[in-house]
């Protein structure tokens, strides 16, 4: 048995979520990684350290490489005959997995938070805001395609190394691969990032208006915390998308997550409920966020946050 993992570059090397998937895959089987990015020695070494035995370095693919990457992966399936093809559930991961599913005519299971190869392959995922765990088994022919939510597994080096590297140039895909990227805009905030900050302070609709997001930033500063947001206020244009925590945004697992003016919609809970500790401030005592909070303050964040900021500044 072997597992093929699709991995993409993020910030110079293999993305953290890809390394999580490779670590998990390597715990059950030999792993081949199809890596889309700069095939530097450092990148290949990193992939090996987390469990990749073989690396297929995918080169090219144009501005929107999903169609071409799916084409190349379909070719690798014929050579490797993997039992499963795993993807981190990133933007590109979803785009490639969807297209590959069609090419191979195999179903894909999304939102996996667990994976089991004891008998065939089964996938666990969460529904109803994480209140129920569903186990789904593949019942058809291999390979099984699975999209794995970031932070479902921890990325741990195994001390291994890559024994075989091959470069594959991505094929032309005609009209499907023809879009042109004419500009790339980076909105990434300075300072602590959602992916690795110990503390995250997030705001939602309860802030009332875009200007009140400054209250979130003020509390975050003395805590050296990253700032996050719900889909509602990102959609409303109050803060950039890069701050979104939840199903369509980032999955986070900080030491402390402080939810301010966030009701706790399912779409948000799935992105943060596995935080080690959760504090919630909300006016509505019935808000679902309180069901996952270790400390809940029923009150007006416009009162609580400035006083909290003040107190933290005095201590800092």
């Amino acid at each position, binding site marked *: 048995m072997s597992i093929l993992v699709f991995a993409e570059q993020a910030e110079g090397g293999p993305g953290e979520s890809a390394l999580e998937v490779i670590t998990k895959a390597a715990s059950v089987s030999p792993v081949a990684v199809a890596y889309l990015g700069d095939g530097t020695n450092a990148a290949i070494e990193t992939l090996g350290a987390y469990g990749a035995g073989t690396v297929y370095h995918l080169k090219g693919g144009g501005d929107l490489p999903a169609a071409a990457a799916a084409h190349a992966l379909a070719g690798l399936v014929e050579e490797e005959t993997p039992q499963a093809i795993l993807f981190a559930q990133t933007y590109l991961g979803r785009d490639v997995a969807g297209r590959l599913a069609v090419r191979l005519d195999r179903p894909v299971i*999304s939102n996996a938070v667990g994976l089991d190869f004891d008998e065939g392959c089964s996938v666990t995922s969460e529904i109803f805001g994480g209140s129920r765990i569903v186990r789904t088994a593949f019942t058809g022919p291999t390979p099984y395609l699975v999209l794995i939510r970031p932070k479902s597994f921890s990325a741990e080096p195994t001390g291994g190394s890559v024994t075989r590297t091959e470069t594959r140039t991505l094929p032309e895909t005609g009209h499907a691969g023809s879009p042109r990227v004419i500009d790339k805009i980076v909105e990434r905030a300075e300072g602590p990032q959602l992916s690795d900050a110990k503390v995250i302070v997030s705001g939602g609709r309860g802030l009332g208006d875009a200007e009140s997001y400054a209250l979130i930033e003020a509390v975050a500063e003395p805590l050296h915390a990253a700032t996050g947001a719900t889909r509602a206020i990102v959609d409303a244009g109050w803060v950039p998308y890069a701050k979104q925590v939840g199903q369509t945004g980032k999955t986070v697992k900080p030491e402390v997550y402080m939810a301010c003016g966030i009701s706790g919609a399912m779409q948000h809970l799935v992105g943060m409920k596995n935080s080690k500790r959760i504090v919630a401030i909300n006016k509505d005592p019935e808000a679902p966020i309180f069901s996952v909070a270790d*400390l809940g303050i029923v009150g007006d964040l416009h009162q609580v946050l400035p006083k909290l900021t003040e107190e933290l500044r005095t201590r800092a």
Partner: protein
Amino acid sequence: MQVVVCVKQIPDPASPSSLDPASHRLVRPPEQILDDTDRYGIEVGLQLGEKTGGSVTLVSMGPTGTMQGIRQALAMGVDKAVLIDDPNLIGADALTTAKVLAAAARREGFDVLVAGVESTDGYSGVVPQMMAELLEVPALTYARKIEIAGAALRVERQTSAGFDVVETDLPALLAVTAGAVEPRYPTFRGIMAAKKKPVDRLTSDDLAVGGDPRQQVVSVAPASERESGVIVADDGTGHLRIVEFLETAKVI
């Protein structure tokens, strides 16, 4: 410009959801509503249709029930509905769903095929990409702003770092995020007009899509609950409770 928009009727998320104990499938009451995220796709479709003098058709798979959600879409201004309500498709996975919707879209003909990034009830988030592959068109997923640029479309796509501005020739698929546009509300005139709009009904046979399910839910269990926390009303010292909590957590 001919636009086809994919929409889905879902159980009202404001009501408690439940699973059928035998099949583990989501219980779908007859009075399902339009998935809120689809209102954005419909608005994108309507604006593209209006700017180019084109038509907008919706395709939808699933139990039609009272048609509340479909009627809402027609009342917003969609010209025609194509519905695939087939018992053979109950419990269909994402790939089967994509095959059905893509076949219906192909049958109607389109320059732009619009869908939401993911549904609120199933959220597999791969149906648009699958449709694009089946139809051999570009997929501009996570689209948050759409403009017509001559014969092409110019689209802002969300990325993990910010966004890309991308241009594509047609035909193409757009998977739009909530927030791409401000969806309109149906007018009284629109609601009246919706009653006379054409509604086609197709089966999986009409679209030549079928096949046995290849995945099966084997168990559903309650998640391990977090230990219930302390909930206090703010009496003016709520901030001190938080400071104390942060100290215990050793982050200050």
